[in-house]
């Protein structure tokens, strides 16, 4: 439409210019932002002539044969174009606008990002890491765009950092959540098309709207006026977490009356996801409006994506060997239908208002306000005075027949008790698993209902034995920010910004389904087992003791975290001929406070506060960064960046046991970060890319986990403080033009991300008791915690593979066909370790008080035990082969465009790729041994997540 208008006008204009034969020239701009696009390959295949547009988007082809021919425009990340032209003796001007590539692979990146989410944090201390793949996908940088598409199935994380290290904003307003520092992908789930307009900054570069962050920053731009006018409808089919996806977007673009509107809806659905027992149901809506009046503009955007989906478990290798890598222990059949016990419900309606004022040609002021209320919850089975319902409970598995006799499985033939194992029973159980008797291999829902019905008859006022509880982690935030930009002179650019955010995290659980029972009694069953006559300690809510709860009632725990953040930053950017310098300074204020809404018995008996507003903690953290760009010549730039900052601990990880009491991690302090990198960017006509060396030091971080400690027979919270880590490595991205429409992209990183020192671990029993004696302390001033070293030195950070390389061969045919093949290799991926396996007691041994208060020697690992139980596992590396093919078809004189894209991933069907998981915390000791020797048997083996085998994505999109 508009494109054509533009082109025609200039063609006719060009006809009036003085005669110079056989020249075709023009400018190529981005059709959304209208900024020039550099490095676009402009070809006239008939003449075998190719040039690249410069940084100003301009190109010129000389000595072109006169007559009818075709001109093509192509660039990585953009939809290719071709026009029929007639070359005449006068210079022909062809200006065009290119469209950024339709988000096919964004969806795959997003899938993988969604697989691992907050709910996993509840499980056995697993700290799920998320990739920033979704956010960097629309970058021009060959390394960033590859690492988002290709590396995402392996949960790759840029530079090994945690998710908090990538700043994500929407229209300039920071959207990383104040509790955990994460960006909620599912909040914009499915609305990739509406949110595809992103600016991605790499590493420590300047963002232009914020201080930025370690791994760079992504800003999603939803100003309605910046969308290309038109409609876009897409339908996709895939065999991943969901099967069917549809979306429709309509944008008016900026209209004559100064208004612009964009609307989008999306839907994703599967009744059967790739992993067994998973389902997916998500609807998304998006609406943006903007009014531009003179130098002012007001934009309002709102969106939300109510989603319901089933989760998948991490299982031990034994179970995967029986049932395959898509096994999921969270589901079972109910009345012949698949029922998943872990269903996530999330909905994060958001509204953003932006006011922009172009003060003059040099300066502008942007003010933004945002509000969102994220309702996020996931369900899980809970049981009381009944057998554990998990199908993969370790005593139910065939391997227990071996481990119960201290034999490490059928391969442990040298073990003295090897021949005493009841192999008939082992084989009988194993057959049930291999033949998939779902009463055993999956949750037996009928048995759960039956237990509750029988209990209703026997004890009608008593607690049900099995229920489905729903754990809620809601977050409401309101944010305000202001950004002032002033191009003071043609050398100096200034940004100054202020922002504030108030967040209220709400954490509680509700009864989701009583599974046939009459009610559930709200007490802590482990405290009841240990202190059956103490009616105080077993209560979760002392103001409503022994309360009978029903579906929808809040029970168990209920607390809020109130967080206030404020920050100010200022940066200067000097632009000279050979050198660019920028420096930025920021000051961040963070305060948080827990508000308990229930008086918990386990806090009460040791005199800790649980109900009411707790201690207010605040941190004031400065940050400073500086960057230097040396523009060596037209083709080469060298950029050096440095950052030093302290950052407040994340509120979610600052409390020992926030569900029970208001006590913060001992030694809670801001983490200190020092980071620097050196980048060489080169841009030649046939080859362009970047080589980066980086190193980041982090000191005084904190981590927290919780698990059942077998030695002390109680649930413990184990926190680490003084966590020091280093991240260093090299990144390389290359984009090479070969001949005949072929190009090669190479991307790779080799890193060393590890813990550089031991940490201080504090272990405390959640029921408040002295960990050694199991008694409630009588002297409340004495600490009942066990404080000792956790030997984390030289353990590796488990944020994805530290070695990832890929090579992509792409082909573009002027008839609008494009295809590519990618081979990638991943290695140096380490499983998340459990701090319990690295405590001084387990590593070195030592004297600890026993139940009588006498000092008892606890042995540490023997060599054999250390290798089996006390090391961090390095996961196997592997290859992934992907391919994709696509075609663009134009209709109606290019008024409509149909994109078809088929993406085939893991063509080699490599089902041996472990993407993550965790080491279980439990460790068994021989109680009869005089030194409480650790048992040399792996009763609690590591749990894994596997990458999918072959999977595909077919996307059909129509633009009109």
């Amino acid at each position, binding site marked *: 439409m508009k494109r054509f208008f533009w082109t025609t006008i200039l063609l006719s204009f060009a006809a009036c210019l003085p005669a110079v034969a056989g020249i075709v020239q023009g400018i190529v701009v981005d059709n959304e932002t209208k900024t020039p696009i550099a490095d676009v390959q402009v070809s006239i295949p008939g003449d075998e002539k190719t040039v690249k547009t410069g940084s100003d988007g301009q190109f010129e082809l000389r000595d072109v044969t006169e007559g009818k021919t075709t001109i093509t425009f192509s660039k990585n990340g953009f939809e290719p174009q071709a026009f029929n032209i007639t070359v005449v003796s006068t210079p022909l001007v062809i200006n065009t606008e290119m469209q950024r590539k339709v988000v096919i692979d964004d969806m795959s990146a997003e899938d993988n990002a969604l697989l691992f989410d907050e709910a996993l944090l509840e499980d056995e201390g697993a700290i799920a890491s998320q990739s920033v793949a979704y956010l960097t996908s629309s970058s021009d940088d060959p390394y960033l765009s590859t690492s988002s598409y290709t590396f995402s199935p392996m949960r790759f994380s840029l530079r090994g950092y945690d998710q908090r290290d990538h700043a994500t904003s929407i229209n300039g307003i920071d959207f990383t959540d104040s509790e955990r520092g994460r960006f909620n992908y599912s909040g914009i789930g499915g609305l990739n098309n509406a949110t595809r307009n992103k600016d991605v900054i790499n590493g420590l570069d300047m963002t232009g709207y914020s201080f930025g962050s370690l791994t760079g920053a992504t800003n999603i731009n939803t100003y309605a006026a910046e969308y290309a006018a038109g409609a876009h409808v897409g339908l996709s089919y895939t065999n991943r977490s969901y099967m069917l996806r549809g979306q429709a977007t309509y944008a008016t673009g900026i209209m004559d009356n100064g208004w612009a509107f964009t609307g989008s809806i999306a839907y994703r*659905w599967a009744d059967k996801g790739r992993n067994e027992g998973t389902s997916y149901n998500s609807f998304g809506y998006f609406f943006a409006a903007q009014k531009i009046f003179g130098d002012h503009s007001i934009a309002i955007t709102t969106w939300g994506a109510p989603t319901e989906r089933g989760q998948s478990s991490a299982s031990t290798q034994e179970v995967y060997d029986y049932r395959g890598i898509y096994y999921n222990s969270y589901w079972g059949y*109910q009345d012949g239908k698949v029922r998943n016990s872990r269903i996530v419900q999330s909905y994060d309606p958001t509204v953003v208002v932006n006011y922009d004022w172009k003060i003059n040609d040099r300066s502008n002021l942007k003010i933004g306000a945002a509000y969102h209320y994220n309702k996020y919850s996931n369900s899980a089975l809970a049981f009381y005075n009944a057998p554990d319902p998990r199908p993969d409970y370790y005593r139910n598995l065939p391997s227990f027949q071996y481990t119960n006799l*201290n034999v490490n499985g059928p391969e442990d033939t040298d073990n003295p008790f090897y021949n005493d194992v009841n192999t008939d029973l082992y084989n009988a*159980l194993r057959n049930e698993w291999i033949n998939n008797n779902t009463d055993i291999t999956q949750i037996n829902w009928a048995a759960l209902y*039956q237990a509750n019905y029988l*209990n209703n008859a026997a004890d009608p006022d008593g607690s049900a*034995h099995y229920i489905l509880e729903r754990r809620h982690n809601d977050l409401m935030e309101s944010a305000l920010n202001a950004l002032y930009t002033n191009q003071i002179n043609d050398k100096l650019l200034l940004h100054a910004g202020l922002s504030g955010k108030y967040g209220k995290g709400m954490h509680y659980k509700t009864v989701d389904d009583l599974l*046939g029972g009459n009610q559930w009694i709200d007490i802590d069953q482990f405290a009841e087992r240990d202190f059956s006559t103490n009616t105080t300690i077993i209560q979760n809510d002392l103001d409503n003791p022994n309360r009978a709860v029903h579906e929808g009632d809040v029970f168990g725990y209920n607390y809020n975290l109130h967080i206030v953040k404020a920050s100010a930053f200022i940066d200067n950017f000097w632009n000279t001929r050979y050198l660019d310098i920028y420096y930025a300074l920021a000051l961040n204020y963070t305060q948080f406070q827990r508000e308990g809404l229930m008086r918990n018995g386990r806090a009460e008996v040791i005199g800790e506060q649980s109900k009411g507003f707790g201690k207010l903690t605040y941190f004031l953290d400065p940050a400073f960064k500086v960057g230097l760009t040396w523009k060596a010549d037209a083709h080469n730039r060298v950029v050096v960046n440095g950052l030093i900052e302290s950052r407040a601990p994340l509120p979610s990880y600052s409390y020992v046991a926030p569900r029970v009491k208001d006590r913060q991690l001992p030694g809670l302090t801001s983490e200190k970060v020092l980071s620097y990198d050196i980048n060489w960017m080169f841009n030649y006509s046939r080859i362009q890319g970047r080589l980066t060396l980086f190193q980041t030091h982090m000191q005084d971080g904190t981590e927290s986990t919780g698990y059942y400690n077998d030695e002390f027979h109680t649930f413990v919270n184990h926190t680490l403080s003084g966590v020091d880590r280093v991240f260093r490595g090299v990144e390389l991205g290359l984009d090479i033009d070969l001949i005949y429409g072929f190009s090669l992209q190479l991307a790779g990183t080799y890193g060393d991300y590890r813990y550089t020192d031991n940490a201080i671990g504090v272990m405390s029993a959640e029921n408040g008791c002295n960990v050694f004696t199991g008694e409630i302390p009588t002297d409340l001033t004495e600490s009942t915690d066990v404080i000792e070293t956790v030997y984390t030195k030289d353990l590796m950070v488990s944020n994805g593979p530290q070695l990832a390389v890929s090579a992509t061969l792409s082909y573009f045919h002027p008839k609008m066909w494009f295809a590519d093949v990618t081979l990638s290799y991943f290695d140096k991926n380490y499983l998340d370790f459990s701090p319990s396996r690295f405590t001084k007691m387990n590593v070195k041994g030592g004297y600890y008080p026993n139940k009588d208060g006498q000092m008892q020697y606890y042995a540490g690992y023997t060599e054999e035990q250390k290798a089996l139980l006390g090391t961090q596992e390095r996961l196997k590396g592997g290859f992934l082969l992907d391919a994709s093919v696509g075609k663009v078809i134009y209709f109606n004189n290019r008024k409509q465009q149909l994109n078809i894209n088929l993406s085939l991933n893991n063509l080699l069907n490599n089902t041996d790729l472990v993407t993550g998981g965790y080491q279980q915390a439990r460790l068994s000791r021989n109680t009869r041994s005089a030194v409480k020797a650790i048992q040399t048997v792996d009763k609690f083996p590591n749990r894994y997540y596997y990458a999918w085998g072959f999977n595909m994505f077919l996307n059909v999109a129509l633009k009109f």
Partner: protein
Amino acid sequence: MKYNKYTWALLATLGFTMAGCAKFDPIPADQLIVGNDAAWTETMSIADFKQTFDRKDSVFSINYIDTESEVIIKGRITSTDVAGNIYKYMVIQDTQTGEALKISVDAGSLSGTLPLGQVIAIKCKGLILGRYADMVQLGVETFNTNYSRVEPGRIPYPYFDARVQLIGIPDTSAIILQEITIPELLACDSTMYGRLVKIKDVHFTGLGDGGERLSDADKIFAPSTFNGTYNVGYPQARQIADADGNVAYISSSEYARFADIRIPDEDQWGDVVALVSWYKNSPTTEGEIQLTIRTLNDLEGFETGSAPTPTPAIFSETFLNGTLGEFTAYSVTGTQTWRADNQYGATISGYQNGSSHANEDWLISPAIDLSSCEKAAISFEHAINKGDVANLKTNHTLWISDNYTEGDPNNADWTQVTIATYPDGTSWNYVSSGQCSIPSQYLKAGVRFAFKYLCSDTESATWEMKNLTVK
């Protein structure tokens, strides 16, 4: 407006159907409660089952149930593990005769899915019937690595679940409770093992295993069996007796929720409901009948025992209020003498003005009357420092006399009382002296005890003590 065709196109492409959020209806109860018509039919009674498959030849034995056709037994559950005294096993009884069978299953809180009073049918083919310490039970073959023997072990829970059918709803009123006297109990044969019985009109005798008198602290159901290294874990016996003096033993586990509850006082009489258990762990030892109660409700008519009244001290002195109280200090040699300090208690040191001075000093108690005691002991906290450790026990001693009245203690007759625990002599840390037993001849009126301190011109220690009691 020209946008119309686009909005239509938009609507037209919206052919998506929204699947509603799947909400699961509960499985109807009647689908899960098995009626008599759908119940498995038993192929033999529990009594016949035990008769057929029990190998009676050893105290730990197993016998495979690998008959051609399926063997199905039926019974009503008479045990519950809610109180933790019963762990990973259950007992069923024949619904007509009350004959019982113990079944070991590897799951905690079995009563959650297999409740008290529930009738169940079990397909036994593939399991074993064996004897553990001579008591018959249904289980699987396992190997005990601590004793290197094959014995009946716990059936893995899913393995058992596939073989069991719950029939109807639990009915505790239908449980057959057999009234029995203690003599009948002690004379019973193996058909009684596992049965639920009621013994009327008994009381707790305050004796434990083998008839030993229980100390006051041990008058709870099951004190810890911690032996300094680990919890040995054997159940602990508490004797009950009927009006005729016949005795039987109730055995409880230290992991029971009532383990720390005091047993009823000897003057409480009531009825005891319990499961009969038999334990004979070697062919040469005599087996014993043990009664296992399920919860404290099985003790009918009893009240739990009263807490022991703490015996008051006969005499006590803290030395911490600035005076020596009723004690007198007598200095035999040297000018230094016993004195009181608010913080450190009664103290003495021969060291003054930079050097030691030879001393003999006595700290003598007032006359006390120990005639009402069966036994008595002195205990206090003390610290000794700065002296020669070799002289620790000779220079700091405790003595008792029945004929001292006043003046120089050396004129009276004193017997030494051993101080049970001395501090190491090299620090200011106080340790408890332990119970320093008073010899029985001094358990009368008019006795005094005294602390004697010695030092020389070359070495002297400081002796401090506080919180003294005589009980």
